[in-house]
């Protein structure tokens, strides 16, 4: 879809995908991510009434108020968004769930729920707006803060950071991306791909907090990100009609230095074009190794870090009816009188 079209396939303008006015600090990375969501939703022609915007508590978690104003939203409690999405998507499998969380929300209080959500493969896009700090409570260390970082009241951070992408891979997440809010093109590409993914897609996006953690030596700052970001590949999204029909989804073999096509379940194809390094995101141990390297060398490697043919979603492994459970007619919600009578009879 051309970017300058006035309306999209649904006849909606980009404005129709906006939300309320942001109340975040001017320049906050989170606002930029909201904008990319607005843009790709418009471009993909997302039906907002089927979208649910989910979040916890934090500056990041406020953002669902600032995009897709026509979608239902649930700004829940701190760190527990994963369970809320799990419930909502299980009872209505037609919903497209977009979750927004922070590094505190996911990495500190929410770590347990995050890991268990991933284990269950709850179908959703899970966006972590990672700034290494608690924005809303005014600048404490989060669990992704750099080791050795200094903050006025809290002194040095001597604890190693949690890598939420690595945690996702270890928890058998089948789609793990990392990006930088200062790289809107990549954020958009990953967002589009993640929406096409069946199951949980994690996007860990470095999103600087201009108020509390934007010093150039912080790995979560704009200056650092701009200087150190290393995209692993260029990402393109190819529409379904682009590729030949295939019966079964399969992953092509990787040819070094070339192109990797990752077909999604909805028919789109994520095309990864090699940049500097040869990297195939479809190898678990290699992905872990990459992150280990990134950790040791303090690199901001971005792109699709890990991808795997999606396993069953939670609703599938629970063998649930294909119809949304929220839309069952009354006669499917209450067995007939005879069913009860028979049961009672058998208990006498």
């Amino acid at each position, binding site marked *: 879809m051309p970017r300058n079209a006035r309306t999209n396939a649904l006849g909606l303008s980009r404005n129709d995908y906006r939300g309320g006015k942001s109340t975040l600090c001017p320049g906050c990375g989170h606002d930029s991510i909201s904008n990319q969501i607005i843009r790709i939703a418009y471009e993909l022609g997302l039906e907002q009434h089927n979208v649910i915007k989910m979040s916890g508590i934090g500056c990041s978690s406020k953002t669902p108020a600032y995009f897709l104003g*026509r979608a239902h939203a*649930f700004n829940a409690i701190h760190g527990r968004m994963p369970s809320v999405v799990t419930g909502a998507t*299980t009872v209505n499998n037609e919903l497209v769930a977009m979750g927004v969380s922070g590094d505190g929300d996911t990495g500190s209080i929410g770590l347990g729920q995050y890991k268990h959500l991933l284990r269950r493969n709850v179908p959703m896009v899970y966006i972590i707006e990672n700034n290494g700090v608690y924005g809303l409570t005014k600048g404490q260390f989060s669990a992704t803060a750099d080791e050795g970082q200094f903050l006025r009241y809290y002194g040095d951070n001597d604890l190693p950071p949690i890598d939420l992408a690595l945690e996702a891979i270890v928890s058998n997440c089948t789609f793990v991306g990392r990006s930088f809010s200062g790289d809107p093109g990549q954020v958009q590409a990953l967002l589009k791909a993640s929406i096409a993914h069946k199951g949980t897609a994690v996007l860990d996006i470095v999103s600087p907090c201009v108020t509390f953690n934007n010093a150039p030596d912080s790995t979560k700052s704009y200056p650092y990100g701009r200087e150190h970001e290393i995209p692993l590949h260029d990402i393109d999204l190819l529409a379904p009609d682009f590729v030949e029909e295939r019966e079964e989804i399969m992953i092509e073999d990787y040819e070094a230095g070339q192109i990797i096509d990752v077909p999604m379940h909805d028919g789109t194809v994520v095309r990864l074009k090699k940049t500097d390094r040869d990297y195939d995101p479809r190898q678990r141990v290699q992905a872990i190794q990459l992150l280990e390297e990134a950790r040791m060398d303090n690199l901001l490697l971005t792109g699709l870090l890990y991808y795997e043919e999606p396993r069953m979603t939670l609703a599938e492994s629970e063998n649930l009816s294909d119809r949304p459970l929220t839309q069952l007619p009354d006669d499917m919600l209450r067995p007939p009188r005879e069913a009860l009578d028979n049961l009672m009879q058998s208990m006498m």
Partner: protein
Amino acid sequence: MSIAEIQQGTEFLAEERESQVNDFAFMVATKNGSGSQTSNSVLVRSLFHMGIPVNGKNLFPSNIKGLPTWYTIRVSSEGYIARRDTTEIAIAMNELTAAEDIADLPEGGVVILPQEWKWGRTRDDIIWYEIPVKETIRQFKIPSARREQVGNMVYVGVVAWLFEIPLDQVHRALSDQFRGKAGAVNMNFEIIEAAWEWARDNLVKQDPYRFAPMNLTEGKILITGNEAAALGAIFGGVTFASWYPITPSTSLIDALLGYRHLRKDPESEKDTVAVIQAEDEIAAIGMVVGAGWAGARALTSTSGPGISLMSEFAGLAYIAEIPVVIWDITRMGPSTGLPTRTSQGDILFTSFLGHGDSQQVVLLPRDPDECFEFGWKSFDLADTLQTPVFVLSDLDIGMNNWMSEPFEYPDRPINRGKTLDKIGLEEFFAERGEWYRYRDYDKDGIAWRTLPGTDHPRAAYFTRGTGHNDKGEYSERSDDWVENMERLRRKFETARTLVPAPEIETSPGLRIGIVSYGSNDPAVQEARDRLRADGIDTSYLRIRALPLKPEVITFIEQHDRIYVVENNFDGQMTSLIRIDMPQDNSHVKSLALGDGLPMTPRFVYENILSMEQGHNAQERTY
């Protein structure tokens, strides 16, 4: 019996022993995990099929194998099913507790115990039957894994002979128990028969107790409260359940899984009830809140520690107005407490669950029948009120088999409350020109909601636990906050009109009233009969829900003396009553038990009797 009681003495028992046919209690002391549950169930079912009103209460430890466990069975020709705290007969199968078990017997009591212990007769005021447990099973080729369980059939056979349970009833009960699996039925029945024959040939009946067929259980069923609750949920349209295992609530979910087949999608044969084991109770209620928000009928089932963990989400659901149903099968707290003992100790905490100004709606079933009823009604209520509904059952109701009338099919269609679908929303707009999520159009405090997925450009709204105006917009304005809180209070008053009314038994001129709730009912009923026999006539009000209905206060005002009977330590319902009752209520006495065991008629009877006697002694200068 080493589950020592706080009440002393056994006089009550001696007094009340009106008949020795179908009117006594016995107790089976075994080791946990030894399979004695099966034997005890067979006994209970046999008696039930003989038409004798019976109850069985399992007093089990928080342990998988080896610790002492007791099972008390009471028969009552008058239909009383409350727990009796002393039993005439002890089947002492656990050597470790036998001394206490025997010591606790009343004069003239009966003990049945294994011969092989060579225990000796340590009391001469009771009747002794020594039975050959090991020897009996030695005659049979039993796989060693089964030997312990099957050994417990020996006392079944002896009991059958001694107290006259027809063997065909025992056989039928066995078939029920093993769902007709012939191998298991036969193996066990052989032992029972052998023991029965041994008893016939070797024992001399010395005691006066026996069972005789009646027809008082006809048309009745035997079921646990947790099974009933699950069944109620199935007929109430539950589509989502999330839970974290915890005794004594787990069997509710087990039963839900067991009844899921009643609700298969007829086309695909797939399930329409999602049951998710969460990683803890925070996640369990979180999922339920997400599901309830999305439009499911969602429940979770837990017990005390889980209720504590659910506090934060309960507050969110309260203020964000999400319909969910939360079962608390209460066990003894605080903290981990006594995980396998019953209690009514969560009622005060739950009714204010969540920080800030919150008040929760609570239902208080008394037995499996009401568990079934509240099982489906709770969803209608939650949807109607758009708020969490807590159902506080307890271990006694939830895990013990209760005699019950068969459940009645719901008498009204499913009620989804003020939920607008696409068409409903269009009509709403047509009629009123607007729709705002939290606007009190009907002045009952309940606003109209839409569900995610509603295909209408103005269906969406923003749900949050932070301050908002009636449009659902974020707001920190004091006036918006207060307006919303005022509407929630209006809604709570609407809830007061909608929750189940108390059951009241009274007649003009009665001056003494008993107030109680939940599983205490059989004990209170029996105590009232006994008090009546002693010339003390009482009214009775059984609370079935919070917020308290005005009837409760009126009832209390109408009586000179009120006894609030409850099974917790602090008299929590008394506190809740006082909060709603600024007028003098010093005539309200709290009769609170809180020892982890089901309420007994004796506790109620003796306490009221002595207080009333004291009262009379003071010549009404009370």
